[in-house]
């Protein structure tokens, strides 16, 4: 942390005092335990929060630009490189979008295996976030290594859970990070029934660990915060959403994923290399991710996950962002249970992939990344080269909501000492598991406070 007011010249500071203005600045140059790098700026004047900026100055990598001219078949492998933590999400949204463009209909077997693959990514990603990034905040530890000293068995269970998710990715995708067995239309090779059956025993144990995770995290101390979010998620009539569904919101929207851009826009603000998403109807922020899915689709969770939520006293309508850690744990139960169901039904029938001839076309798709919905749209030339594409990752959609959360949290805790307020702000950001690598990445915290400076000098 550094005091940004050092930069104020005495004259400026005198002027502020004369005007009766008192503001506070704290800065954390690099926010820890998030995927990617970023900064935060908070400015208060007296008891008023004047400005909040979640700054993302992760170097831009221009995926949408260099995808132009590449073959559509390369999109799953290239877009995977946007994020090492959720490559499957990029592979799924790009595959579905291109399949929709070309009119490819996948087989029920491929559909089930894609859900299984996604379950693997959810388990790996939620396991990482719950145990390594978020839980240390609630219990006052700096990292999972120190947490493991205090809670060895719990952490071992968490690591096993995460490892099991990675094992699904390895068996079905070839490797955990940037799986190689995924292609437009399906897979290069279907797994054998025996290969998938090998996942059954670890998944049964992982599901028990997931249930234990729900119990463990529901006992954490939660700040009493209720936020009035507009939740946005996919919703499917028969299942908890992963690859398919209508796009719905708590404010009553129900549209086909291909209509996304008509209802949601992106703006480019100076303090972020990630574009800010907003509702076109009124320019307001919205929230995607586990909390949105749970609130909009909780009734589609399997019985075991619904029961775990009830036992943990997680309300059906959960508006406390700090409780997103319980929701992630509930989704861990779902993902383990769903993976077990798919494995027991698996027959390895049909072709590994479905193909179609290239033609000039356009299509879009949304799938559910662990952090929320991931939109991709492709326009292809007749020879299958990508003429144009658009990618809207979950974190850029949540940026403004995270800023709104911070504004609320700082306002409610404005009397807290700087160190505690800073920690609370960082935790507030982690509630939404921002993946700045996806959105681009670089996060930093500054809170301005002239009043504090008066005392210090």
């Amino acid at each position: 942390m550094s005091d940004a007011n050092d930069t104020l010249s005495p004259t400026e500071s005198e002027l502020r005092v004369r005007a009766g203005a008192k503001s506070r600045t704290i800065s954390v140059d690099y926010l820890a335990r998030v995927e990617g790098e970023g900064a935060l700026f908070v400015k208060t004047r007296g008891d008023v929060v004047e400005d909040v900026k979640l700054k993302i100055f992760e170097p831009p990598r221009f995926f949408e630009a260099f995808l132009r001219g590449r073959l559509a078949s390369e999109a799953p492998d290239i877009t995977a490189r946007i994020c090492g933590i959720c490559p499957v999400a990029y592979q799924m949204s790009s595959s579905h979008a291109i399949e929709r463009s070309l009119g490819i209909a996948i087989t029920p077997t491929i559909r089930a295996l894609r859900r299984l693959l996604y379950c693997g990514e959810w388990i790996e990603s939620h396991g990482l976030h719950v145990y390594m990034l978020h839980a240390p905040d609630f219990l006052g530890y700096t990292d999972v290594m120190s947490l493991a000293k205090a809670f060895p068995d719990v952490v071992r269970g968490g690591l096993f859970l995460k490892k099991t998710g990675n094992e699904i990715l390895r068996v079905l995708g070839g490797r955990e990070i940037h799986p190689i067995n995924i292609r437009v239309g399906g897979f290069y090779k279907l797994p054998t029934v025996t290969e998938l059956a090998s996942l059954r025993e670890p998944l049964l144990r992982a599901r028990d660990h997931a249930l234990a995770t729900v119990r463990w995290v529901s006992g954490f101390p939660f700040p009493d915060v209720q936020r009035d979010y507009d939740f946005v998620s996919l919703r499917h009539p028969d299942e908890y959403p992963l690859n398919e569904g209508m796009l719905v919101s708590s404010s009553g929207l129900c549209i086909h994923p291909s209509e996304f851009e008509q209802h949601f826009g992106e703006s480019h603000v100076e303090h972020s290399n990630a574009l800010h998403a907003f509702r076109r109807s009124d320019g307001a922020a919205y929230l995607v991710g586990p909390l949105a899915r749970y609130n909009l689709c909780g009734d589609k969770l399997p019985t075991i996950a619904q029961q775990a939520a009830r036992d943990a006293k997680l309300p059906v309508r959960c508006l406390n962002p700090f409780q997103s850690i319980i929701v992630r744990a509930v989704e861990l139960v779902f993902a383990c249970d769903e993976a077990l169901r798919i494995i027991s039904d698996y027959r390895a029938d049909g072709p590994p992939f479905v193909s179609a001839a290239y033609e000039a076309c356009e299509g879009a798709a949304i799938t559910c990344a662990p952090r929320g919905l991931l939109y991709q749209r492709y326009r292809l030339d007749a020879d299958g080269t990508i003429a144009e594409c658009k990618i809207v990752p979950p974190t850029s959609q949540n940026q403004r909501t995270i800023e709104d959360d911070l504004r609320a949290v700082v306002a409610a805790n404005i009397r807290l000492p700087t160190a505690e307020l800073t920690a609370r702000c960082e935790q507030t950001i982690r509630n939404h598991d921002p993946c700045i690598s996806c959105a681009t990445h670089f996060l930093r915290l500054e809170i301005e406070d002239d009043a504090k400076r008066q005392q210090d000098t």
Partner: protein
Amino acid sequence: MKASPVPKIAVWKFASCDGCQLSLLDCEDELLQLAELVHIANFLEASSRVESGPYDVSLVEGSITTEHDRERILEVRRQSKYLIAIGACATSGGIQALRNGASVEDFIRQVYAHPEYISTLRDSTPMSAHVSVDYELYGCPINKTQLLEVISALLQGRKPRVFSHSVCVDCKLRGTPCLTVTRGLTCLGPVTHAGCEALCPSYGRGCFGCYGPKESSNPSSLVSHLHEHLGVPFVELRRLLSSFTTQAAPFVEARKRFPPGT
């Protein structure tokens, strides 16, 4: 190379997807033990406890794409006894090096509404273009077993046992029938650095080169062969050599040998 008894390790991120440093957190069975053997002094993705340098070992992920990062890597080098570049971005500039040679201004305009807010260098470059690098571990992403081997070798003061042969050799070791010979598939296995355990061919897919060129490889010869014997168009072969390690010298050379129009 040999570091102090309990080496102080730092992990740094530059322009990247996070996947290579995630490999360390994906060592679920070894992570806690590793944390006993080394002192993880700066690993921002995993810990909010950050200690200042100097460090015995710095693991560096990502490529250099901004002026700020160009200065930051110099400081990391100054603070580090050993600097290890991990992954395709740190060793070759990564997939984002596809911008090199293109108009960055055009790229920015395609992605961002306000180009004036974006600060970026013309090229994406590997660590070795800016500082001396003590060891390079290839892969997009790296193999976590190899990462643990490099760290172990460092702890034991020996050379890492990381093979430098091609993916092609690993296929023979695994007993995977050659996809080019038996199925006529395009495969970069003969020129690609080993490390993935010849994964793609075992899934019936030709190697697409995510570990980059092996030392003393001859991609031009492979390009001629695939074109003459399998009829693969040059445009497709050029594209294959322009992906995760697009700026690796042997791949750049091969593309020059067969420019558009050949």
